[in-house]
């Protein structure tokens, strides 16, 4: 018999809020991807995940399942965990791979030649660009010229949730994120943007944000069609 330990479940759910869809840069909990999360009295956690379509990209799906496994396993009181992706064409390969801690390459034998670190970093860079637009747009609306934005450090920008998020993403990438760090940096190198390239940088930041937002809105629209009941714990 499975009996749910509610305090550990709460802790496990809190841990799952730290797991993001790398492509949409949103927690899997707010996206509705966590179908259920239970913990038995013996400390065995059971998490079921689900995605907007049967054909969502398996690499991102793998990252979410593996990250959810790591997050839940680290919760005090959880002694073992099973994370299962449901209703997906690659469910078996992903679920078995994560359960066996086999890594991505082994889980998709012959279809992948590298683990997913580079892919994750590539999408963190996109998140940094989108975050740059979120932080800069109010400054531009308040009259900041490109040269002024270029001169700003993170510590000089008024605090906001968007700024905190941008700092976190930059830190995740190993880029400077402290008060003295420049606001406008190349997400690949971490270097401050050259003056002549600021207009293009801001435009790229803007289109990156628009792309992620459009993508998220389509994914959430598809998700609601597939799972109209939302999510339950």
């Amino acid at each position: 018999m499975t009996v749910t330990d509610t305090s550990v479940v709460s802790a496990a759910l809190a841990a799952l809020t730290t797991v993001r869809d790398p492509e949409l840069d949103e927690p899997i909990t707010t996206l509705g991807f966590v179908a259920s999360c239970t913990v038995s009295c013996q400390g065995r956690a059971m998490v079921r995940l689900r995605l907007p379509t049967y054909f969502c990209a398996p690499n991102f799906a793998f990252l979410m399942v593996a990250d959810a496994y790591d997050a839940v396993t680290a919760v005090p009181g959880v002694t073992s965990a099973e994370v299962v992706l449901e209703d997906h064409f690659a469910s078996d390969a992903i679920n078995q791979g994560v359960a066996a801690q086999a890594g991505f390459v082994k889980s998709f034998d012959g279809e992948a030649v590298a683990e997913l670190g580079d892919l994750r970093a590539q999408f963190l860079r996109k998140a940094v660009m989108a975050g740059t637009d979120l932080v800069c747009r109010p400054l531009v609306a308040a009259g900041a010229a490109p040269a002024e934005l270029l001169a700003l450090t993170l510590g000089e920008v008024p605090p906001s949730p968007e700024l905190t998020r941008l700092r976190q993403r930059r830190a995740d990438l190993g880029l400077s994120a402290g008060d003295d760090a420049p606001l406008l940096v190349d997400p690949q190198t971490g270097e401050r943007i050259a003056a002549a390239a600021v207009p293009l940088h801001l435009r790229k930041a803007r289109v990156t944000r628009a792309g992620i937002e459009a993508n998220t809105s389509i994914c959430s629209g598809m998700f609601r069609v597939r799972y109209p009941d939302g999510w339950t714990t």
Partner: protein
Amino acid sequence: MYEKDGEKYFIVDSHMHYWNAAPSNWVKGAENYAKGWIECFHAYQSLGPKETHWPIEKFMAYTEDDLMKDVFEDGYVDIAVFQPTYLKEWYAEGFNTTERNAALGEKHPGMFIANTRFDPRDGDNGLDELRRNVERYGSKGVKLYTAEWNNGSRGYKLSDPATYRYLEKAQELGIKNIHVHKGPTIWPLDKDSFDVSDVDHAATDFPELNFIVEHVGLPRIEDFCFMATQEPNVYAGLSVVIGGLMHARPKFFAKVMGELLFWVGEDKMTFGSDYGIWEPKWQVEGFVDWQMPDDDELSDYQKLTTATKKKILGLNAAKLYDIKVPAEFLVPAQAGAPAAQESAQLVTDS
């Protein structure tokens, strides 16, 4: 033809389908994929207005009569371009083949353009098939589905040497337009499967061909836009953009349109309904009525002129396919902004 407020619009639906996804066409052992695929498409339909939704049974296998009514009679379309998608690993006779499309097209002369397709993994036989299709159906374009499964392979890239061989052959046969669809299962899986950089390489190396990136590279609009600014022969296919966003997510539709007009430009954007996912009627009516909203956040995006809409809804695609458009539908040659000059300048300056 669509007419509103005294303006006449020539409509080219540059991306539509006539598929058969009925259970009787599902490959034994691959039913989950066949079912999953069409259910996924059907979910997309729900992003359109409620009164245009179909039951799944009709959606799996709409008829010739449905198509002729929805696209031409009710949907204002003058010329429709069939874009085949084979998926023979899952659908026994194919999902939407050149032959199936062309057979319907032959019954209705002058209404359809039958594109074909190729798969560079099909070797010499595939080259022969491409030649036969071009000769028989007069195809001027191909639809490439780089994520298609083929005999154990889960996808290919436009920059693969095998693809270049096919592109050379296609060009020699008189193909002008390469419609590219990106999907989520391309090999290798550890790379971003929607990455459009392979289109960039091919567009540079085949300057005589036009590359229409369908669904504007969604979900990688940013990468697509940046590439399209630099490649004069790369176009934005608006299928899914209008169908998937205009009704369901108007604010994000505005942003995406604003970005596309800036980076790609109104001369290189083409309407496609993606029928049977969405009917063209509401898309054409809605787009003609649509304008960039007066919203602070959208204030530096370009407003659309009537000429912009005429180009996007038909005149741009008519140029790509050498369709003769009667004079009453044309816009003055210099109407509207030249394609993406400002964005090209931005890239050059930095």
